[in-house]
Structures are given as C-alpha cells and as structure tokens.
C-alpha cells in the first residue's frame, strides 16, 4: 500500500470539521512546531525533506523560503496560491474541499517557520463554494485558538484571510496574484525584484501552492529526513495527481513520486486502464501547458527506460522526447482523439486568458488560435503548420511571465510529435467535427 500523507483521511465522515480532523491527528504539526521547535528548525526540516513546489515549476521549497528577506520592522507575508486554473488540474480544489484544515494547518506551521503574522489564501473565483468551506475552517481554527493571538498559548500570533479572485488564469502567476490581492488589475510584475524581496505591498512575501503548504504538516510531523525517503532521487515525497480523460477511473490520486507511468495508467489502484479498451494515444502529463507526449514516449523514455512519475524522469530527454511533471494535471487521450482539436481547445484557452500586457503573448496567442481555427474549418494549408511553428517560437521566452511558454509549449509539442495529423488535415481539407463544443459553450465566438 503506497503511503498517503495529504488525502489519507478524505473519506472519513465529517473530516472537514475541526473536531474530526483533530481526532485523526490533525494540527499535530502546529503543536510540535510552536511548542518544541524554533522557526529556523522548521525551515531546516523542509530543506531536508527536499520538498519541491507543487504548483508546476518544482522549485525547492526550503530554498525559496531561505531567500525570504528579513529586514527589521517590515512585515512579511505568506500567500497561498489557490488559483488553480490550469486545464486538467483539480488537485488543490479536491484537497481544500475535502480536508480544508490540512491547508490551514500547513499555513500555521509555514507562517511560524517564516516569521509571518499575516497570511492570505488567494482562491480562484470559480471556487466560491470552496472559499466558503475554507472560511468556515478558519473560523473554527480561530475559535479553537489555532489562529489569532497567542496560538496555543505561545507568543506566536497569526491571522489568515481568504481572498476570492475574479477568475483569471493569469492570477495564478505569483506576481499577478499579488497585484490582484492588492486590489489592482492582475498583470504580472516585471522581475526582479522577486516576491521574496518585494512582494505583497512591497514587503517580503512567500507564495506557495496549496499542496506545497499542506505538505509542510506531514514533514514537520515525521521529520524532513523521513519524508525524503519517500520518492525517488530529487523527487521526494508524495504528489497529488488529477487524472482525467479516457481512463476508467478519473480522479485525484496521491502517489509516491517515482511510480511508473504505466502502472499509474493501467494499475487498478490508480486510473484502472483505458476506458472501453481503447488504445492509448497521448498524454499531457502535467497540466495543459506542458508538452504532450505520444504513447511510446510517455511509457518509456527515449533510452527505453520505463518513464516514472517524477520531476526528473518525466523531464528526461528535454522537450525533444520528454515533458514535465508540472502541476500534476494528467490528461489521457485515446486513439480516437484529434490532437489538432485538442490543441485548438488549449490555444483558445490561452488566447482568452492572456493578460495583454506584453506584445508577443497578447498578439501571438490570438494569431495561433486563428491559424488553428483554419484546421478546424478545413481551410488550412500545409504552410500553416510552419507558420504556427514559427509563431510559437517567437512567443516562447520573450514575455514578461511564463504565460508565453505555457501558450507556446503545447503548440510546439503537438507539431513536434503529431505533425502528420496537421498535414493530413491541410492536404485533405478534412473538416474536424467540433459540434460538441457548440453544445457546451453555446457556439464558438
């Protein structure tokens, strides 16, 4: 039985209440950290654990925390990024909805480690009902003396606020999130300075993903060294994977990093194999922005080694033959799926969500969508494939924030691995049926 550290209790009735959560060992990390450890000890445990950011970039959390500037007399902030909007990713929502207290617990322990006295949970607008659940959990925590002044009788105080965004993908970019939290238009800031030096209201700020913060609690409980034993190499611990697509059992799974991809897709404990016995065609392994991989490359690396669910193994081969673990949004596609249609959906999303601040992304995303629309209409020419390739290359790496890459990578990967599909449509002028979109969205704009 694989170890579960984050969602082991989700099926316990009433786990969203403080009473039940505590009865199942909840808030132990707060007791342990505040009463027996110094803040720097907690940071040290997180460093030892090898925990990496679960939002997508995989940056070592302990290192990020150690960058936090600590000038005298200036407040510091901890901001939880709950603006989970990457298509295919729904792990944070699951965690917050089922066990809201595990996030609150992580917030308290992390804030203690960072010397923070005001913390925010920035949650995406569409998760309004989840915000209610969190607010309720926070209210319970205040009443139990786990938040507010002198937590558990110690001299550590912490306030925690839930801030509901207005539903913009770009506000998941940490500096856009901070702008939005400050009440401004959610445009990414130009870096440097990084949030660790000048973040919320110009003060040093740590922005962490929901899952990252929740993982701090088990790390403190079991010790960083013990946590680091789970997983493989530099990919330590467990990871929530939200699996969707043509599989028998879509859902959120907690895996130990290092699990073979093949076992994840076909194992009864996880996705349970392909639905209706269809063949696997391709997988987007970490949310819509990471490169799509065809079946042979997702199951085995270019060297013929089994592909594992870890930062390193999924990244093996670079973008030529590899991809990224990303946020853990695992989208499985069967043999009937049109990669072009899928790419059109993704690109339409990125066009819609571009903030419009810098030129390559503002103009390029719309251009790519319009070219892909030609493939959907059956009016594309072979030269459009080259144009699409050229346009994505001119967005990638030229923008203020990583949104440009997020929009360009799916296009690049689809062309890299499935160019024939594009060419076939261009040659045969084959119409791609998109009628189901019209049913879903009331027609395309």
């Amino acid at each position, binding site marked *: 039985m694989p170890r579960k550290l984050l969602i082991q209790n989700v099926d316990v009735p009433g786990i969203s209440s403080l009473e039940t959560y505590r009865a199942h060992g909840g808030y132990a990390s707060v007791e342990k950290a505040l009463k027996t450890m110094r803040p720097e000890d907690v940071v040290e445990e997180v460093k030892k654990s090898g925990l990496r950011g679960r939002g997508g970039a995989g940056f070592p959390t302990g290192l990020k925390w150690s960058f936090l500037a600590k000038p005298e007399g200036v407040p510091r902030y901890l901001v939880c990024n709950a603006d989970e909007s990457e298509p295919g990713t729904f792990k944070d929502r699951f965690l917050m909805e089922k066990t809201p207290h595990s996030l609150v617990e992580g917030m308290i322990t992390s804030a203690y480690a960072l010397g923070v006295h005001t913390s925010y949970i920035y949650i995406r607008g569409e998760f309004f009902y989840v915000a209610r659940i969190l607010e309720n959990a926070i209210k319970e925590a205040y009443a139990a003396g786990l938040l507010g002044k002198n937590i558990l009788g110690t001299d550590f105080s912490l306030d925690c606020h839930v801030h509901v965004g207005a539903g913009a993908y770009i506000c998941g970019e940490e500096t856009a999130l901070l702008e939005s939290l400050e009440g401004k238009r959610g445009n990414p800031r130009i870096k440097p300075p990084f949030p660790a030096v000048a973040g919320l209201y110009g003060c040093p700020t740590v922005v962490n993903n929901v899952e990252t913060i929740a993982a701090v609690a088990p790390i403190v409980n079991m010790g960083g060294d013990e946590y680091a034993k789970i997983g493989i190499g530099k990919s330590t611990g467990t990871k929530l994977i939200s699996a969707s697509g043509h599989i028998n059992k879509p859902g959120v799974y907690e895996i130990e990093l290092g699990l073979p991809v093949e076992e994840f897709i076909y194992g009864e404990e996880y996705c349970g194999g392909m639905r209706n016995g269809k063949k696997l065609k391709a997988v987007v392994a970490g949310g819509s922005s990471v490169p799509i991989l065809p079946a042979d490359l997702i199951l085995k690396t270019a060297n013929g080694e089994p592909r594992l669910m870890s930062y390193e193994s999924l990244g093996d081969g670079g973008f030529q033959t590899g991809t990224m673990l990303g946020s853990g949004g695992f989208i499985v596609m069967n043999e009937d799926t049109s990669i072009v249609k899928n790419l059109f959906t993704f690109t339409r999303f990125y066009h819609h969500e571009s903030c419009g601040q810098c*030129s390559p992304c503002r103009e390029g995303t719309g251009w790519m969508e319009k070219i892909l629309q030609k493939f959907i209409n059956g009016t594309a020419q072979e030269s459009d494939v080259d144009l699409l390739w050229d346009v994505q290359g001119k967005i990638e*790496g030229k923008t203020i924030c990583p949104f440009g890459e997020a929009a360009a990578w799916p296009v690049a990967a689809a062309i890299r691995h499935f160019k024939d599909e594009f060419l076939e449509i261009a040659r045969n002028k084959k119409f791609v049926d998109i009628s189901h979109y019209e049913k879903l969205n009331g027609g395309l704009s």
Partner: protein
Amino acid sequence: MKVTIDGIEIDVPKGTTILQAARMIGADVAPPAMCYYTNLKTSGGYCRTCIVKVTQGSAANPTPMPKPVASCRTEVMDGMVVENFTNPEIVEARKGIVEFLLINHPLDCPVCDQAGECKLQDLGYENGLAESRYEFERREYEMIDIGEKIKLHMNRCILCYRCVKVAEQITDGRVHGVINRGDAAEISTYIEQAIDNEFSGNVIDVCPVGALTDKTFRFKQRVWFTKPMNAHRNCTSCSGKVRLWFKGDDVLRVTARKDEWDEAEEFICNGCRYDHKSKYDWVIEGPAPIHRQSVISQNKYANLDEKKLQELKNQKALGFMKIDKKP
C-alpha cells in the same frame, strides 16, 4: 560598473539599466524602445522590442541569463556582457515582436497624423517584413474623444502603457487606464470621461504611435512640411520650454521638446500646448535638432552647423529667427 554591449565596454554608475548604458554608448548599439520612457517611473518591459541577450551575468557570477531580458528594466552588473545587434537570435526575435505589434495595426500611415514621427514606422522600417503573414481581420475600435483636445484612435495603439503612466504620475486623480484583457485590452478613460487636468496633453507626446493625437493639429499638415523650432515663454504652470511646429509664419502645433531618443525632456502644460498658437507668444531660440530617424526637413536645415546658421541669420534668410520679443 563595467558593462560590455556588442563588444563595446563602458563604465556606468550603479543602478543604470542596460538600455541606458547602451544609449550612453550611442545609437549604434541602443536597442529600440517603444514603451520605456525615462521620465515615467515603472514604464518599460511591455513591448519587448528592447530585449537583449545577457551572455555573462556579471564578473562574480558569469552564468548567462537563460532567456532574453528587457534591457529597459534590467540593471547592469559589474562585468556584465550583453549582445544586442551582434546576436542573430535577438535580431530574429525582435523581428518577431515587431511583427506581433503590426498584425493588428491598421497600417493607415497615409492618413495618420503621426506618420513621419512614428516610432512604429521606424521600427517596422528597420525590423519588419515587406509583407504581412497575418491573413485575418484586424481588430477595430471606435474612435474616442478624450476631452476636447485629444483623439484616441485605439486601432493604432500598441498598449505601451506610457499614457497610463502619465495619467498616474503627472496628472492627479487618475481617470485613465486599461480595460479588458488580452488582445481585447484597450486604453480607456472609463465611459469617455475627460482627463481634466493641466498636464493631460502630455499623453499625446508620449504616445509612440498615432493612437493619441492633438485635435488642434489633426489633419492640418504632414509633419515633414513643418519646421520645428525651440522656443520658450514665461509660464506659471510649467517650464514653458517647448517646440513650435511652423508652417510659414503659423504655429500649427506646440509639443514638448524631445531628445534624441524621442522622449520629452520636460512635460508641458495644456496652456502652452493649446492656447498659445501665435509666434508672438514665444521667444524663439532656434531650429530644433533633427535626429537620425527623422524625416522632417532633411533638406531645410538638417545639415546646418552653427557657423552656417549664423551666416544665414545675418542674411535674414531665416526671417522668423529675428523674432525674439512680442512686438
């Protein structure tokens, strides 16, 4: 701090950006900048035309920066090595950015008042393709009046945010910003509310394209048929140092004085800009310098040096030069 740009080394003070350092070296290495404006804080970083490659971060940490950086918003480090025009990737990337800026631009230069002094024209001329690869409909907006004196032609806008920064920093009570998102974003005063402020006219001067134009000058004259002269007056609101744009003896337009990077040296008030259109209102100092990209009057007095100018003055060849007092 020593920084090397395109193989040329220069010593600059701490806090200098790569763009400023490149401009100190000269126009041959200075990247084009559409959104950066020296006199506007937090401007820059949006248009991405000034991107450069940092091949050595600093002497202490020589690692190259992984992605191209916006030179206008990146401060130099001691021992930094930067490639601009010498790096083919950067040249190619810049072409891409110029193409992006142009795909939704109406290219209506023949009827645009900015033509001849438009930064996008210069940029397109230097980095653009001969033909557009964009085959779709360009986005269109209705024209808007921003107050009595300013016309906003959003079709031409490249969203450089300069005018927004002017509204933020020079005028009080900002009523001007960006609404909507992505490629639907537009400059707006929120329901066409006028910018009611003594310095609002400066949004015209900072606009690199023909999106914001002076309604008192619209369609009066192509700029290359006008003669820019530096002049001043005693003004209680601003420095009173301006540039007058003459056609014969008539002052068609008053703008701020711009430096060789096409940036206003000092912002001027609306009184000077709109209400003093007579040459008798001004003390005329002399012809404005003509810069490298200017199409204005290359044959009129571009190549006149001081000595020749003095000669001409003595010969009364430039009649209006004599005017330095109200009659």
